[in-house]
Every structure is written in C-alpha cells, then in structure tokens.
C-alpha cells in the first residue's frame, strides 16, 4: 500500500509539473542539409527530392523514425491495458490505471518530441528554400545591373562565331599558321554544338519548364515555403492538443489518487476528526 502511495505521489509530481515547455528536448538530433550550391539550379521538384533524400540520411530522421515506432508501441500497450481493466479486481484496476497513466505520460513525451523533430525538419527546409529565394533575388538583381554588359558580350560572341568560317577559309590563316588554340577551339566547339543539340532534343528538357524560367522557379519555391508554413501551423495546433492531453493525464492521476485514498479510508474505517474546527472538539470540552 505504501508502495502504491509512493507511486501515486510520483505521478502527481510529474503530472502537475507536466507542460510541453518542460518537455523541450535539445538532444533530438540535427539535420544540416549537405547540398552543394550547384544543386540550387535544379528544378524545385527535383531539389525537394534531393533535400528529402538528404534528410533521410540525417540523425534527425533516424530519431524521428525511432520515436514514431515508440509511439506506436505505447498506443498498443495502452489499449492492451485498457482491455485488461474489465474483470480486474479493485486493487488490480488501480495498478492497471496507474500503468495506463504512466504509458500515457510517456506517449505525450514521445509525441511532443516527435512534433519538435518534425518542426525542426520543417524549419530547416524553410531556411533552405529561403536561402535559395535570397540567392535567386540577388542573382536577378545582379543580372539586371549587368544586363548591358551581358548583351554586349553575347553580341561579341555572335560576331566572333560568324567569323569562324572566314578564319578557316582565309588564306592568311592557313593550316600551318593556325594556332593550337584555334584547332582545339574548333574541335571543342563542334562537340559543344552536338551536346547542345542533344540537350534540346532530350524529352526531359521539354518537360523541365520550371528550370528554364526563373520566374516560374521562384513561384514554385514560394509555393514550397507556403506549404511548409501551413505544415508548421498544423504542428502548432497539434502541440496545443498535446498540452490538453497532458492536462487530462494530470487530472486522471489526481482522480486516481483520490480514489486510492477513499478506498484506503474505507478499508481502515478510521474516521479522522478535524480538531482544527471548534465544532468537532465541543465534546472534548463538554464531556
């Protein structure tokens, strides 16, 4: 009996101090995306895939999976304990209820950790996409500033390309006089042209409209950020739910304590008198 009281006392202490803030755990593992900056040019859909693959390799993902499994086990255990309640004696039912409360407490703890991990994942993703957004904005600003130069350079390249034939045909630039650079230039240029044609003919190139148009890419990334923010808002609501669950568990624990106390009173049949009330001590004075 003493043991049971001690357990109940512990439940009350843990239950009353229960709040999601106290559950904050910093050892949830971390995820730092290991994606090189060159990957940023990928279309958002592929980028998101790469990001998810990167996450799956992180410690945070492993911890998330483990916690998920733990939660499933806890729920199974709680329903198992609940099924045991029917047909149990009074003493046994107290013990089972006690076990249910402990499991519920663990479930809330794990669920809270799970939500924190999911939040961390979403936060990291959001930061990543925001970084890409910033880079794109900076690049578009830079390209606007240097657009005149880029146009001049493009026209210079066109003019020089149009002279390739002339240089090859020109008698003053015959084979013996042609430089090593120009010979290599011709070979490489032909190879580049072949590759360019292959890229244009590639079926994925036609599908990949987002990668071609930076405005579309920006819009797609904005949508990803919006989705992440929505998911985070849903998580915040779930956190609130966990808070309420914790309160219910604390109330359950208190109710169990009361029930145990009443049962103990009934067993011992000792009527304790409150001597602090003068009404109860009148007999002491009168008799």
């Amino acid at each position, binding site marked *: 009996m003493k043991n049971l009281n001690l357990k109940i006392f512990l439940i009350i202490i843990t239950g009353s101090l229960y709040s999601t803030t106290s559950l904050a755990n910093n050892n949830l593992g971390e995820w730092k995306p290991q994606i090189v900056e060159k990957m940023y040019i990928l279309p958002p859909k592929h980028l998101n895939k790469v990001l998810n693959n990167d996450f799956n390799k992180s410690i945070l993902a492993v911890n998330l999976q483990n916690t998920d499994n733990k939660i499933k086990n806890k729920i199974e255990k709680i329903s198992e304990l609940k099924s045991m309640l029917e047909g149990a004696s009074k003493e046994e039912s107290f013990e089972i209820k006690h076990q249910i409360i402990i499991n519920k407490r663990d479930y809330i703890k794990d669920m809270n950790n799970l939500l924190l991990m999911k939040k961390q994942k979403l936060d990291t993703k959001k930061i990543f996409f925001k970084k890409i957004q910033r880079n794109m904005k900076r690049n578009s600003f830079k390209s606007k500033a*240097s657009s005149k130069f880029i146009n*001049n350079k493009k026209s210079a*390249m066109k*003019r*020089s390309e149009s*002279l390739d034939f002339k240089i090859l045909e020109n008698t003053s*630039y015959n084979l013996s*006089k042609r430089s090593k650079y120009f010979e290599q230039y011709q070979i490489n240029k032909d190879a580049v042209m072949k590759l360019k044609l292959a890229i244009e003919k590639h079926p994925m190139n036609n599908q990949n409209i987002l990668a071609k148009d930076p405005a579309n890419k920006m819009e797609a990334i904005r949508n990803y950020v919006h989705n992440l923010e929505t998911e985070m808002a849903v998580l915040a609501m779930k956190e609130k739910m966990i808070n309420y669950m914790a309160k219910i568990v604390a109330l359950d624990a208190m109710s169990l304590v009361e029930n145990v106390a009443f049962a103990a009173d009934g067993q011992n049949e000792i009527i304790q008198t409150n001597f602090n009330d003068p009404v109860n001590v009148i007999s002491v004075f009168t008799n």
Partner: protein
Amino acid sequence: MSKFIKTITIILSITAATSVNANSLDTLERERAKALALVLNKSISIGDRKKQLENSKLKLLDLERITINSKDINKNPSYQTIKAFENFDFTFLVHSSLEKEKSFSISWLEKLGLTTENLMNTRVIRK
C-alpha cells in the same frame, strides 16, 4: 619582429594573389598595345613590320577569342571589361578587321577617323 614578418607575408601573399588574378582581357590589352606600337613604329622596315604583325595577329586572334568566350569575366565585370565590350572594334582588332576584310592597322585607323579621304580633305590653316 615576428609581427612585422607576419604583416609582410600577408601583404606579399595578397599582392601575389592579385597578380595571379590577372584576366584574359589584361593579356589581350598588353598584346594589343604591342601590336599598335608596331604599327606606329617608324624605325623598322616594312618587311619586318609585316612579318612581326603577322605573328602578332595570330596571337591577338587567340587572345581575342579567349576573352570573348571567357566566362570568368561575367562575374563582377570591372569598368575596364564593360568598356572593352562596349567598343568591340577597338578591343578586338583582328576580329573587327576580319569582318571588314581589311588589315587590322587600317581597320583601327579608320575607326579612329584617319581615312585616306579624311586626310586628303584636310587643309593646313593658320590660327
């Protein structure tokens, strides 16, 4: 003393790094200056000039092509680079001369406004 050595080392390494960063445009500019000096050099024979200009042309052609196709200069182009591409005919002498099908010295002089016609039309006047 050790601080002084450290400072000197840092300054020298920075200087060395900047010299390494010299881009293709700088090399082209140097070669172009040499070629133009050759055009304006009165102390060499016509034959020598022709021979040396031919070599210079080949070098310039390569350097011009390298500069035009260089992607490094796209990032943060300097004022000098921007101006170089604004004035294609002055910067890329050999390319410009091939377009006009003239020798690059004539093409350059014409671009400056020193054509035979202009020179013939000039009059000596006293101010």
